[in-house]
């Protein structure tokens, strides 16, 4: 039993997975690492995190699909989801918002920005308003 907020991080790129983990852990979060969509879904179901930071482009089940499936579970609607996207076009990223994500952040992003966004999303506990990028 821990009192630290739990953040689920999913990214197929281990460097970025590590970067996000480091950033959040240093700020006092407990981090759950997932290397793909299946793992992310399993951890989300097992550990009920306070926030999910999902990479959009992952082999197999991508960030959109993970979001859709989480939203389809019983308590899934309560989980704040932040999408990380390497796509240049907003159009591609917007699909993630339609799938049920709360906000997105374009790569490359600043670790400081990520911390700020993660903090506010956990505090607001699934804010419905769309958060603007950095």
């Amino acid at each position, binding site marked *: 039993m821990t009192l630290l907020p739990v953040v689920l991080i999913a990214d197929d*790129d281990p460097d970025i997975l590590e970067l996000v983990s480091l950033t959040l852990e240093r700020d006092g979060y407990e981090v759950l690492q997932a290397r793909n969509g299946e793992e992310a879904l399993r951890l989300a179901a097992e550990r009920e995190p306070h926030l999910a930071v999902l990479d959009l482009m992952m082999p197999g089940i991508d960030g959109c699909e993970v979001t859709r499936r989480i939203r389809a579970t019983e308590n899934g609607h309560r989980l704040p989801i932040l999408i990380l996207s*390497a796509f240049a076009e907003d159009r591609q990223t917007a699909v993630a918002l339609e799938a049920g994500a709360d906000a997105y952040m374009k790569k490359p992003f600043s670790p400081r920005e990520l911390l700020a966004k993660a903090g506010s999303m956990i505090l607001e506990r699934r804010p419905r308003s769309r958060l603007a990028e950095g």
Partner: protein
Amino acid sequence: MLGMSVFTSARTSAAARPPRLALRFAVYTGIALVVVGVAMLWVLERDVETRAEQRAVAQTQQVAEAVLRRHLRPADFAGRVDGRRRAELDDLFQDIVVGGFVRATLVNRNGRATYSTDPRLIGSQLTSAALGMALDGNAARAEEHIGEMKVLRTAVPVRLAPGGSPIGALSLAQDYSAIDVQITEAFRHTAVVLFLALLALWGSMIPILRRSTAQLHDRNRRLAAQTAELEQALAERRRAEEAVVQLAAIVESSADAIAGTTPEGKILSWNSGAEQLFGYSAQEMIGQQVALLVPADRTHELESVARRVNAGESIEEHQTRGLRKDGTEVDVSLTVSPIRDSRRHVTGTAVIARDITHMKRHQSQLQALLAKERVARADAEAAQRALAEQNERLRELDRLKDEFISLVSHELRTPLTSIRGYLELLLDGGGGELSEDQARFLAVVDRNSKRLMHLVGDLLFLAQVEAGKLMLELGDVDLDDLVAECVEAAKPIADEKGIELTAVLEPTPVMTGDRGRLGQVLDNLVSNALKFTPEGGSVCVRMATRDDEAVVEVEDTGIGISPEEQDQLFERFFRSSEATERAIPGTGLGLTIAKAIVERHGGSIEVESAPGEGTTVRVRLPVRSEKRATAEVAA
């Protein structure tokens, strides 16, 4: 009535026969018979009358000679008879039976009446022609009138002895009507007999008449039929003759050569077309062998054709060559058909030869044209295929470009994310305390990774613009605010370079646009101005409103740009020669991007510059009229 009966009988017995002919015949014969009858009656009447009168005379003579001679005395003529004698004579004449006897008178030679049954006449002198003749010795008669009564006076001489001179005359008057009655009766009998005879004659003629009319009718009919046949035959003959004439004319006028030959190949006819085609006249050719018209190397063809046609086969449009009189050859198309007699025996051949020189030439021309056309079509098809392939390649390239954008977007940003992220962690002291050198080196990495990041961002942005995928996030933009922010942000760099950076603002209406993108434009223009302005120079940002547009000017006292290069300023990756020479960093994308964003907002951008003096970049953006701006942006 009679005519009618003949008519009706003729009509009923032979309805088909024309009744008019029989009727006419009956009428004509009837009239002829009536005329004959009338003539006969007239002759008969004269005859009967004469006979009756003669009989009356004879009677009177008989009376005079046979009766009176015995009773009359010469004294009776001497003078007026006395009373006694008169009574005796009265008795005598009373007894004379003469039809219609009216009176009798005795006349002496002097013409004086010596006695008369009419006492008033005795003693009177009588003169009449008949009496005169009688006194001359000849019996005579005359028609006279006694009072109202017409009488026939017969005067006969009275002689003492036969042959002696008359001593007087006896005059007897008979009532003429009595004689007339006799005449009329005789006439009537004769007429009836004549009429009956005529009627019988006419009646007996009817069957003959009918038979002959029928025969006539039949003959007429036969004649008519024969005439019709004759006329038909004549017409056919005429038509046949015309057809022959026409055929002959056709054959003669045909442009094709037409010739008739015997089965052995001797030419019997030769039209003008043949004369023209082969150069031989009809006179020259008739009687000649058809082999004369065949080139030596084609003799075998002639033999084969002759054999087939004589066997009853027709040969149509056989293409071969003919030999002209002048020795040249000509391309001909031959049609050869057998000519047969009524027993279907082949008695000759009809040869039609057509000059196909022109056709042959046209054919070869046509084939040449067709060949050319085939080649041209093949070329066109090849070109089309090449074009299609090129199109396909272009589509493929377009697709690859899109893919490349995605790839760049994803594959460049991902490593950049790691580089930038970890660098930030290091600089934030996440990897422990940094030495001075370490911090300096990492600052270089940081600056260059930022350049790389901006370059990637600019490239992707341009790719989006060119693909027509640039989306604006429209909202209210306060340009004054934006310009002030931009100048504020650039202040540290300007200060660092010793450049005076100023902003001249003027309240401007809010416009509709993408605040982030417009800010990007201003940042770019200001940083360019600072980049190309040497130390001690100045950069001024002016903001003004004219009519419906806001004008933002960024003026510097920099190195400027030559007029030749000004035109290329907004081209991708263009870098001025000055910039390259002085090693001023840049990608050559900034103005291209600025122009794209401004134009997407419905505005325009222009440059004024003099080398060595400075440059002014002027941006015009629509304001105030929100609707117009929205419409233009949406477009």
